[in-house]
C-alpha cells in the first residue's frame, strides 16, 4: 500500500515536472517575444515618427484637411503621433500573437492564420473609413460654403445632412467589408436611407408644396431672385 502510494506520488511528480519542463521554454518564448516585441515596436515607432517629421507629414495632413476632420471627431493629437502609435501596436501585437502561438495551446493553435486572414479586410476597411471621412468633410464643407453664399438659412443643416449621409454610408461599407452582420447592415442602411428619402418627400409634399412650386416656377421661367445688377469685376 505504502509502495503504491509512493509510486503514484513519484509518477505524478515526474509527470508534472515533465509538463512544466515542456511548458517553461514555451512560456520563456512568449516572454521573449513580448520583450522583443516591445523593444522592436518602440524602435519602429521612433523611426516612423522621425520619418514622418522629416517629410512634414503633419503639415501635409493639415493641408489635406485630415487634421481638422479628426479634430472635429475629438482627436486632437497630431496625425504623425497617431500613425506612430498605430505602428507600435501593430508590431507589438504581431510579436504577442507569435508568443501566444509559441505556447502551442489547442485554443490558440489557429490564431495566427486567422489573424493573417482577417488583416487584408481590416486594412481595406481602415482605408475605406479614412477616405469616407475625408470625403464627408470635403463635401460637407463645400455644401456649407455654397449654401452660405446662396444665403440659404439652413446652410448648416444641409452641410450636416451631407456630411453625416456620407459618414453613415461609409460606416455601412466598412461593416460590410469586415463581414460584420452584412445582411443586417444592408437592410438597416436601406431602411434608414429609404425612410429619409420618403420622409423628405412627404415633408416637401405636405409642408413645402408652395415653396417647391415657387422655386420650380422661378427656375423654369428664368425668374431671377432679387440680386444686384452690378458687375463685381
Amino acid at each position: 500500500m505504502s509502495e503504491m502510494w509512493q509510486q503514484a506520488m513519484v509518477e505524478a511528480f515526474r509527470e508534472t515536472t515533465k509538463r512544466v519542463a515542456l511548458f517553461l521554454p514555451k512560456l520563456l518564448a512568449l516572454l521573449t517575444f513580448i520583450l522583443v516585441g516591445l523593444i522592436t515596436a518602440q524602435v519602429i515607432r521612433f523611426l516612423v515618427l522621425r520619418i514622418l517629421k522629416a517629410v512634414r507629414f503633419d503639415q501635409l495632413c493639415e493641408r489635406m484637411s485630415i487634421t481638422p476632420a479628426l479634430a472635429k471627431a475629438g482627436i486632437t493629437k497630431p496625425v504623425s503621433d497617431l500613425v506612430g502609435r498605430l505602428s507600435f501596436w501593430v508590431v507589438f501585437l504581431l510579436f504577442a500573437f507569435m508568443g501566444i502561438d509559441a505556447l502551442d495551446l489547442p485554443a490558440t493553435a489557429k490564431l495566427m492564420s486567422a489573424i493573417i486572414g482577417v488583416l487584408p479586410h481590416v486594412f481595406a476597411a481602415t482605408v475605406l473609413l479614412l477616405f469616407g471621412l475625408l470625403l464627408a468633410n470635403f463635401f460637407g464643407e463645400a455644401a456649407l460654403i455654397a449654401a452660405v453664399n446662396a444665403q440659404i438659412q439652413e446652410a448648416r443643416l444641409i452641410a450636416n445632412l451631407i456630411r453625416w449621409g456620407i459618414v453613415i454610408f461609409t460606416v455601412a461599407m466598412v461593416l460590410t467589408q469586415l463581414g460584420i452582420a452584412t445582411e443586417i447592415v444592408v437592410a438597416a442602411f436601406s431602411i434608414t436611407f429609404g425612410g429619409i428619402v420618403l420622409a423628405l418627400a412627404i415633408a416637401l409634399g405636405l409642408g413645402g408644396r408652395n415653396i417647391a412650386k415657387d422655386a420650380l416656377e422661378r427656375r423654369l421661367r428664368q425668374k431671377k431672385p432679387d440680386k444686384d445688377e452690378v458687375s463685381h469685376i
Partner: protein
Amino acid sequence: MTHEVAWRQAREQLHDVGSTDILVGIPTFNDAKTVEHVVKTAVEGVSRSFPHASVVVVNADAGSQDGTPEAIKQAVGEAIPTVSVQHLAGGMTANPFTLHRLSETGVPGREQAFQAVFTIAAELGSKACVILDANVRSIRAEWMELLLQPVLEKKADLVAPLYCRPRYEGSLTNSVVYPLSRALYGKQLRWQTGGGYGFSGELAGVYLAKDLWGGEAARPWIDSWLATVAVAEGCDVWQASLGAKIQDSKQSGGELAVVLAQTVGAVFHFMEVYQDVWESVGASTPVPMTGPAYEPSTETMPMNIERMIHGFRQGVRDLLPIWEIILSPETLAGVLALGLVEEEEFHFPVSLWVQTVYDCAVAFRAKVLHREHLLKSLAPLYLGRTASFVLETRDGRPEDVEDAVETLCGTFESMKPYLIERWRFQ
C-alpha cells in the same frame, strides 16, 4: 500643341504675307450680331491712325454656328489679310478645369484663343498686337490709336484698358485686385479687364514662353493675369482711357463666389510665383496714361446693401469654423464684432479688410484648407466690406468714391510689412 496647330492653320491662309506691323486679334464664339461693328471700327481705326502699317486680322473662333468667321471676313474686305483659326479644334485643347466657365465675352477656351493670336503674332514678327472682344458695342476707332500708339511709338509692352464705369461697378477689382496688386507690384494700374488690350510683339513672346497655359496657372481666366504677369516680368505697362465699356454680356461671369475665387485666386497664385519680385517692391508709382484724363462716372448702379449685410452676418454665423482656420485671431475678433452691429452703424474698417485679405493670402499659400473652399468662404467678408464701402460713400460725390479707393490702396501699401512678416514666417 496649340501654337503649332494655330500657326499651321494661319499659314495655310496666309500664302504671300511676310512680316506684319500690326495684328488685330478677335476671339469669338457666335458673335455674328456684334462682330461686324467691332471689326469695321477696328479696321477704320487702324487705317486712320497707322495708314502705312501692314495689318493682319486674326479671328480665333471657338466653333461658331452663326457664321461669325464669315461675317468677319466680309467686314474686313479684301484689302487686309484675314485669318480664321479654330482655337478649340484640330489638336488644340482647352484646360478641362476652365471649360465650364465663360468670361464676359462668352468665348469658351479664351486662353487658347489668346495663345493662338500670340503665336501668330510671334511667327509673323508683329510689332504690335491688339486683342478686341467681339461683343463690345462701345468700341470707337480711336481705341486703336490709344491701344497701339504707345506700343509702336513709346516702346510700351502692354496697354491695359481703363474704363469709365458706373459707381460701385467692378467693386471686387477696386476692393481687392487693384489695391492688392498695386501694393504688391508697385504699379498704379487699375487692373481692369476685357474689351481691348494692346501688346508688343515681345510681350506676346514672353507670354508664350512662360508656363501659363497649363496646370495651376491656367485655372484662373486669362484676363485676371495678363497685366500681373506683364508687371511682374518688368515690362513697360501703360493704361489707355477708353471711356465707357458697353458689352453684350452672354454670361456675367457666374455667381459671386466663383468670380471671387477666379480673380482673387489668380492674384494669390501669382504671389507665390513672383514672391521674389513683390517682396522687394516699395511704394507704388503711376503708370503712363494715354487718352483723355480719367474721370469717375456719375452713374450709379443699384446695390442691395441689406442683402449684402445679411450675407455677411450669415457668414459670421455659419462659416466661423472655416474662418478660424484662415484668419489670425486678431482679424477674426474684429470680424466677429461686426456681426453684432446694426445695419445703420455697420462699418467694416479698412485696416481690418486689408488684414483679412492678407490673412487669406497667407492661408492660401499654406494650403490650410482646400483652396477653392478658402477663396469662396471669403465671399461673405467681401460682401460685408462692400456694404460698408457703399454706406460710407453713397451720399458723396463720384470723386469721394475714388478717394475712398485711394485710401484703401494706401492702407494696403502701408500694411504690406504685415503680409511679408506672416508670409515669411507662417
